[in-house]
């Protein structure tokens, strides 16, 4: 025992454990307890404290004894007492324990006088003898040694001894011994606790006022017997007074504002007194390389690294950190100061590495001093490699809960990109303490230090320091092994999908691409970027990210109802909480029971976007206003609120809400998504009167052509006034009144067209009216292409009559230039048909509405018809429609917006030849030829095929998936096949436009039927030219032989003869038409090529049998056969008998004037 004491040996490693056990020994006198614990603490904290160690030694002994004691405690109660006494003796051998002796004695007196005394007597001599014996011997030995040793040794030894003691004195937390002496006892003044009214902040002031009160009465008759007053920051709301009696305390606090007097004064138990005043010392265990944080000043919170601890004993530690040097130019700083912002209030300068050049620039050369080692001195600080290296007091650094982030550390390493330079162990150290908190059962961990290094497995249980791992692999496979939690780290595999839990990149997910110790590199899912994180900060993610679908009652992007009128969409499912975005754009968290799920309407919810188009769930839409966000529609609420999702947006996990009206489709709608297009029936434009479900889209009428029209106002205040349209603005017209030269804005509906000559009024737009009844007798143009039946006279041909068959066609801008001559020129799509469709703008072709054209046609009541015989009419009228807009050229005019206009063949432009439609055989003109492919392009068959020769079958390659064939499509020509479709002319393979081109997927064939234009069998005098044929007949044909002659065009301003009759009588063939000019090649001399206006051309009549001719239908009787091609057989009195064709019921006899020779086939 004494050996141990004397030699102040290092603490036995076991001592700590034993000390832990100590509180369990209950038999110890109470007063000693705080003392001993204190002692134990000290021992732990300051191990180099010699005196403490001596105590340790004592205690070790004691503890051994204790253990012994406890073993036989039960048997000998008396003996125990005795031993305790003995122990005390030993313990306080070096100490002055008189104060305690009393105490002990008192206690023991109460107990058992005799035993105690007996022990005392027993033991004392024994110990005393041993001591003296020992000391004597030692003395002897030292004498002997002194003799033996030389002086130097002695000096050496002395030095050692004194060095040791000096060190001990220097370092000593030497309060241990005195404090235990000073431990309060029952005889000491007691400590009283009083409460203050406010919880915090006022304690100091209250203490001060108590001081003053006590001091002021100190020398009075009744001084207040309070010895001390204090408070603890950690115990807010309490003040402690040291006094012998509670009365003194009451007197002291009486009248002090802020004291909660009614809560009374309570005594602090003796054993609590010492701890109350104890200042908990922190274990500042600073190691070079460890990370710390600064606590104060402009570096508050900054990370720093300990570089040297040489002076740690004097409370100073050398650290290294990234400086924050204010590099704002001086002038600016002055400005700032002038503005009242002192330097002190200035914001923290950004932390950046010290740069000599920068600093010199701002502060001047002399401010920075360079040292030999390449470091800089600036402002009394030393800078090495850009870092500031400084000795600071330990008090201003924080060594706990440093949690350096990877970014901070990478800044320290000076290179954000590489982790290679990191002192990984330092990072690991810094993060060690956290390991437990982030481990969960099931995590994969790996042991990286200790005897189990390399072991890995999944966490089974987690306790504060120890975790149990179910090992994987190796000998211990499947066993559960306990390891210290600080020596494990999470384990990930390359390729694993993980989620970042903390740090700058919290909530990011990604796949592991590299693992280097504690640092894991992820490839982020969100964007193409790499993220470096500590393995402790990530955990394995589900294969799907949180923004994708999860199971559960409410799924991501479900539409839920917050209340009966507010809908919201789930943007995130966070465990039991739903993060939702409501229709007003507000995001909130709700529990599932706060919402109701809305019936899934994703399949059919439709809203209308800003352009009036439908949008549906799944469409890509874009905002037309605001941020122009783009996203995919995920939900539609009330066709009003549209919820969209865009992965790229960060707010609300990419979900946002917009008004349907403020959205626009990003991409053209696919046919599939549009219900209207999905319906094959709607894809098809039903030719005649088919009950199309789709209303015609609003036509874009070019009303400008109404400008300068003479109108009469039929409604409103100006009713009856005459005026001229000067401008068209939407549905209104600016009308310049004739009466007072004023210009008014009047709705178009209130206007009617006034004919200048006749004074008759017509609806503004329905010029077609006058054409309705126009029979074949009508002029060469203005032929109703659909008036199939060869009626004579003013009788409206059957079926269609006034009812326009093509009512629906108004939509298409005149694809088929219906009418013969004039027709093509009008902007009116279906020429004649148009009449009915009120929408058809074209009043125009031919005489049209404008033309008073009194007469012909015997048309409907309104039309000033011709009345068959035309008796009434001077019929000047059909005229040239000079007024008809767009009339300009001849039939095929380039001006015509006729899409099919240009093409070749006599029937060319007229042949609608809908692309992709399957024509039946041409010869079988009227015969309905069904589309043959099962799923062919919409074959609105029934179109009378133009072209006798059946040549122009476009026969588009049938497209498998296009719109279906509307089988029932009525043949445009109701008439019997016989005369149903007199193909205009194309005896030859007049190339039908669109032939062959692959049918665009589902392209709706606008019109199946080929409205074979009638030439208009204008036989009536005056209408046709001298030859009885319309002057521009040639424009309807091609590859025919013509003769040049005088102009046939009535009222023409052109010279009567082409080139003054240079080519008169000569025969030409032509195959192309340019406007009204036919590109004619002389039959006699192929080098003679002239572009001859159609008005000079006459059909070249057949002159012998066997010639191939086409019926140009000059005379009324053959009008319906116009375009038919036959071969002449023989002539009889101006009529030709044709060779019989299979489709003819009998041989045809045509007037010679109806015929024209075909130039080439």
């Amino acid at each position: 025992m004494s050996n141990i004491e004397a030699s102040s040996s290092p603490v036995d490693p076991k001592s700590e454990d034993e000390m832990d056990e100590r509180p369990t020994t209950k038999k110890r006198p109470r007063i000693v307890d705080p003392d001993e614990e204190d002692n134990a603490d000290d021992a732990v904290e300051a191990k180099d404290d010699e005196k403490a160690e001596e105590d340790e030694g004592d205690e070790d002994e004691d503890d051994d004894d204790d253990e012994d004691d406890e073993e036989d405690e039960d048997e000998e109660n008396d003996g125990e007492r005795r031993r305790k006494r003995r122990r005390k003796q030993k313990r306080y051998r070096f100490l002055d324990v008189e104060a305690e002796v009393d105490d002990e004695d008192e206690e023991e007196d109460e107990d058992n006088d005799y035993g105690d005394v007996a022990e005392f007597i027993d033991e004392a001599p024994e110990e005393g003898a041993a001591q003296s014996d020992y000391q004597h011997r030692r003395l002897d030995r030292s004498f002997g040694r002194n003799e033996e040793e030389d002086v130097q040794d002695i000096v050496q030894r002395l030095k050692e001894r004194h060095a040791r003691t000096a060190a001990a004195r220097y370092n000593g937390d030497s309060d241990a011994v005195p404090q235990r002496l000073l431990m309060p006892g029952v005889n000491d003044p007691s400590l009283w606790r009083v409460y203050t009214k406010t919880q915090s902040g006022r304690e100091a002031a209250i203490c001060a006022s108590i001081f003053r009160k006590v001091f002021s009465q100190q020398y009075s008759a009744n001084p207040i017997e309070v010895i001390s007053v204090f408070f603890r920051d950690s115990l807010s709301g309490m003040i402690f007074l040291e006094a012998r009696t509670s009365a003194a305390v009451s007197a002291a606090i009486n009248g002090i504002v802020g004291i909660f007097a009614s809560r009374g004064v309570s005594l602090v138990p003796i054993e609590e007194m010492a701890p109350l005043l104890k200042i908990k010392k922190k274990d500042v265990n600073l190691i070079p390389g460890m990370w710390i944080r600064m606590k104060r000043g402009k570096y508050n919170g900054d990370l720093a690294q300990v570089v040297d601890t040489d002076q740690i004993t004097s409370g100073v530690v050398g650290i290294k950190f990234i400086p924050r040097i204010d590099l704002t130019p001086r002038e600016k700083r002055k400005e700032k100061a002038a503005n009242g912002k002192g330097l002190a209030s200035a914001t923290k300068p950004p932390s950046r590495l010290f740069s000599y050049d920068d600093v010199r620039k701002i502060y001047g050369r002399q401010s920075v001093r360079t040292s030999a080692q390449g470091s800089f001195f600036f402002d009394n600080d030393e800078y090495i490699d850009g870092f500031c290296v400084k000795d600071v007091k330990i008090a201003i650094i924080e060594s706990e809960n440093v949690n350096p982030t990877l970014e901070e550390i990478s800044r320290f390493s000076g290179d954000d990109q590489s982790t290679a330079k990191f002192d990984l162990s330092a990072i690991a150290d810094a993060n060690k303490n956290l390991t437990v908190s982030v481990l969960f059962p099931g995590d994969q961990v790996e042991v990286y230090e200790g005897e189990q290094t390399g072991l890995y497995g999944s966490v089974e249980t987690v306790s504060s320091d120890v975790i149990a791992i179910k090992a994987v692999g190796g000998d211990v496979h499947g066993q559960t092994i306990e390891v210290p939690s600080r020596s494990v780290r999470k384990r990930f595999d390359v390729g694993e999908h993980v989620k970042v839990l903390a740090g700058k990149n919290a909530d990011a997910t990604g796949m592991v691409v590299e693992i280097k110790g504690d640092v894991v590199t992820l490839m982020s899912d969100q964007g193409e970027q790499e993220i470096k994180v500590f393995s402790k900060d990530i955990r394995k993610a589900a294969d799907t990210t949180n923004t994708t679908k999860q199971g559960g009652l409410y799924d991501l992007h479900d539409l839920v109802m917050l209340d009966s009128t507010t809908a919201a969409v789930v943007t995130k499912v966070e465990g039991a909480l739903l993060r939702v975005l409501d229709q007003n754009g507000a995001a909130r968290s709700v529990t599932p029971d706060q919402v109701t799920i809305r019936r899934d309407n994703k399949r059919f919810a439709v809203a209308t976007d800003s352009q009036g188009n439908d949008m549906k769930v799944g469409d890509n839409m874009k905002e037309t206003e605001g941020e122009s966000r783009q996203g995919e529609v995920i939900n539609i609420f009330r066709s009003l609120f549209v919820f969209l999702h865009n992965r790229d947006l960060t707010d609300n996990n990419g979900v946002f809400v917009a008004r349907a009206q403020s959205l626009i489709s990003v991409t053209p709608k696919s046919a599939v998504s549009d219900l209207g297009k999905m319906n094959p029936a709607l894809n098809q434009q039903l030719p005649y009167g088919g009950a199309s479900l789709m209303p015609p889209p609003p036509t874009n009428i070019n009303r400008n052509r109404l400008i300068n029209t003479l109108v009469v106002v039929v409604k409103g205040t100006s009713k009856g006034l005459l005026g001229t349209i000067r401008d068209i603005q939407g549905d209104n017209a600016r009308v310049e009144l004739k009466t007072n030269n004023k210009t008014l804005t009047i709705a178009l509906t209130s206007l009617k067209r006034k004919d200048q000559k006749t004074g008759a009024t017509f609806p503004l737009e329905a010029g077609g009216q006058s054409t309705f009844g126009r029979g074949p007798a009508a002029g060469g143009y203005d032929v109703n292409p659909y008036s199939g039946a060869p009626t004579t006279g003013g009788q409206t041909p059957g079926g269609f009559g006034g009812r326009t068959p093509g009512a629906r066609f108004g939509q298409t801008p005149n694809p088929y230039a219906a009418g013969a001559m004039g027709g093509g020129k009008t902007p009116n799509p279906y020429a004649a048909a148009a009449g009915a469709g009120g929408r058809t703008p074209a009043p125009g072709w031919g005489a049209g509405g404008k033309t008073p054209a009194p007469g012909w046609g015997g048309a409907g009541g309104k039309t000033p018809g011709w009345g068959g015989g035309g008796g009434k009419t001077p019929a000047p009228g059909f005229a040239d429609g000079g007024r008809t807009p767009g009339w300009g050229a001849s039939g095929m005019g380039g001006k015509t917006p006729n899409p099919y206009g240009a093409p070749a063949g006599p029937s060319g432009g007229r042949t609608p030849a809908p692309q992709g439609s399957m024509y039946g055989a041409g010869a079988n003109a009227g015969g309905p030829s069904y589309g043959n492919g099962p799923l062919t392009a919409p074959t609105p068959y029934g179109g009378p095929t133009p072209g006798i020769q059946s040549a122009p079958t476009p026969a588009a390659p049938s497209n498998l998936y296009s719109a279906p064939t509307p089988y029932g499509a009525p043949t445009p020509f109701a008439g019997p096949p016989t005369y149903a479709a007199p193909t205009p002319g194309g005896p030859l393979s007049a190339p039908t436009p669109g032939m062959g081109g692959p049918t665009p997927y589902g392209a709706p064939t606008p019109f199946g039927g080929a409205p074979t234009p009638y030439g208009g069998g204008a036989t009536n005098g005056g209408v046709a030219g001298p030859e009885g044929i319309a002057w521009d007949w040639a424009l309807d044909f091609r590859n025919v032989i013509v003769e040049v002659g005088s102009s046939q065009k009535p009222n023409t301003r052109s010279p009567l003869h082409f080139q003054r009759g240079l080519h008169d009588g000569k025969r030409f063939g032509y195959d192309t038409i340019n406007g009204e000019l036919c590109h004619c090649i002389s039959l006699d001399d192929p080098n003679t090529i002239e572009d001859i206006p159609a008005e000079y051309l006459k059909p070249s009549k057949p002159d012998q049998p066997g010639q191939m001719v086409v019926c140009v239908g000059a005379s009324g009787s053959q009008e319906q056969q116009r375009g038919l091609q036959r071969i002449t057989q023989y002539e009889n009195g101006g009529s030709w008998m044709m060779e019989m064709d299979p489709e003819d019921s009998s041989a045809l006899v045509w007037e010679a004037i109806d015929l024209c020779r075909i130039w080439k086939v």
Partner: protein
Amino acid sequence: MFFLRELTHTILLHPSYFGAQLEDYLRQKLYEDVEGTCSGKHGYIISVITISDIGEGKIQPSTGQAKFKTTYTAIVMKPFKGEVVDGKVVNVNKMGFFAMVGPLQVFVSCHLTHGDMQYDPNASPPCYRSNDEVIQKDTKVRMQIVGCRVEANDIFAIGTIKKDFLGQIRED
């Protein structure tokens, strides 16, 4: 890896398609709907091989659309961890390169290439270069998949070429 799988698909058909060609529509729609799609569970549906059952149409209330539950067999491609695949590089950047393995995008991080392989941003096109290999756009590479991220309708994989016999595939 490719599999033959029996899958089902529900088709909603607009009433206007009800008619003689109904079945053709259904087939067509099935092809359109499923071929080229990806489900996390089955992988990429490459091609429909047979349609085993087209199902009975069931008219839906309120819309009139008919619902057909079709059963079909399709070739599906699903990547697995550890699988070695050949692909074609589509994009090279400093973090690594992306390669397409059919419909599957595989990312090979620069950390998962051999140590001597360096990114050369100045080359045109940018490439990864080592002593005997050059990986740039359109290079054929052999990779091993080390991880897959499977989402509801997409699959993304990370590959490595840091092993023997992986990397650039030479034509010769």
